């Protein structure tokens, strides 16, 4: 069990980033959020192997490298492929869903319209991963 998760949030929308941060602080959780605005930034962050995140929250629709491309790059890396990656997206496109599970994801969460609904989903997600045993890389 890990009480303070290191969460890498890959998200290009500023308000979405604010939403996660506010959710964590309003729930008084101790998790550490590392922010990356796009896939390229995220890959740079993931180069520091001594400070890898416990889980990754990944948006699908992003400029440059999109979520699915990023996921594929991740899964081809011998070390990074072990980090549970949860998709956080608006797209309930069956094609995307299928493709993500095919490449390998640890979850697929739809961003709800309502902020309260979002808080509730994130709370459950973080609680779940907090009680999981994770590979120490």
């Amino acid at each position, binding site marked *: 069990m890990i009480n303070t998760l290191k969460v890498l949030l890959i998200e290009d929308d500023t*308000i979405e980033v604010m939403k996660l941060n506010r959710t964590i602080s309003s729930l008084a959780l101790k998790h550490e959020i590392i922010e990356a605005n796009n896939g390229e930034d995220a890959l740079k962050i993931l180069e520091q192997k001594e400070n890898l995140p416990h889980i990754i929250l990944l948006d699908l629709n992003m400029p440059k490298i999109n979520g699915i491309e990023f996921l594929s790059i991740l899964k081809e890396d011998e070390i990074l492929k072990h980090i549970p990656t949860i998709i956080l997206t608006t797209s309930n496109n069956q094609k995307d869903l299928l493709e993500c599970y095919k490449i390998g994801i640890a979850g697929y969460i739809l961003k709800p*319209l309502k*902020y309260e609904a979002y808080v509730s989903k994130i709370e459950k997600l973080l609680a779940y991963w907090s009680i999981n045993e994770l590979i120490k890389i």
Partner: protein
Amino acid sequence: MSRNEIDILKRALQREKAARKAAERILEDKSRELYLTSEELKTTNLKLEELLDEKSTQLQGVFENIIDAYVVMDLKGNILKFNDPAIALFGYDIDKAPVNVLRLIYKKDYKYAMQSFKNLKKNGFFTNYSARIYTKSKAVKWVHINASLIFNKQKKPIAAQGIVRDITELKNLELQKELLLKKLEKSNDELQEYAHIVSHDLKSPLRSIDALVSWIKEDNKAHLNAASLQNFDLISNTLEKMEHLISGILNYSSIGFDSVKKEAVDLNTIVQNLNTILIVPEHITINLKTKLPIVKGFKTKLEQLFQNLIGNAIKFIDKEKGFIEIDVKETPSYYEFSIKDNGIGIDKKYHEKIFKIFNSLTKRKDSTGIGLSIVKKILDIHHGEIWLESVVGEFTTFYFTLKK
């Protein structure tokens, strides 16, 4: 010579004479017969000749009048005969220079041609050979050939004949069709993709607005008066409505783009499963009057069809005790379903309009004016019809048909 001897000789002579006479008579008879027979033979021959002439004229006629190209070649592939269409098709005049069939075969179809020729020699014929050929001017044409061997009196094959049809146009049309279909498929995919992206891009700002509004509300709770709080709720409702609208458009535009095939769908299961999707208030009872049939269709679409119609019924029931009745009647070629509710009813003048997209009759936040247009579109792809009967304030019955 004694008298006796003379008598004997005379008798012998007489016998001989008689015998010769008899022989002469026989000879005469026979030659007459022979004459008659030969005469008969002559007429027969004449008749046969006429027949032969007739047959060859007929054949010549077929050879000349046939619209398709007709080709005769020896077993080494040397062309012996071209009719006019053949000359027109291949462009060669074999009277001027010999042509071998090998020169006509399109390179990539060579193997297929050789295999077909083998079959011809083995079986005596081949049918439905379809491949490309070169004309004299090196143009490529698609042809269809039926061919057979020609045998001599000793039943030995001596040549081959074939009817050659120019199917270039047909093949081109086929290719064009395939190309068009592929293009259509691609643009459908793109459109679908586009719909998803647009709906994503439209929904994202809504989520942001909702988050920002709830933060302002949260952070200023102590300072906001009742009117402001109510306005915040209105913003929230408006956002919800907007999101429903976007989801609805996405759903509407997605119908018919699925690559899934039709399957046998048990409508009983679908209606039973609706309880898990729809929230049925306690004062409303849904009554399935008879067992529903199994129909051939798109499962998720039929699910949506029932979900939208029953969902509507639930939404518009204003009575203390609500009821929804689902029934089905069978005709030889289709099923006629009915979904009846004791809700607010729909005025006759709207009975057509409600199926058009964005034609909601109410201003509820959960009414986008897309639900029934989706129902209509789903029935369209199932070749079904929909209509309704209603008395305002009393009931509405939606009828729809699904083919057996």
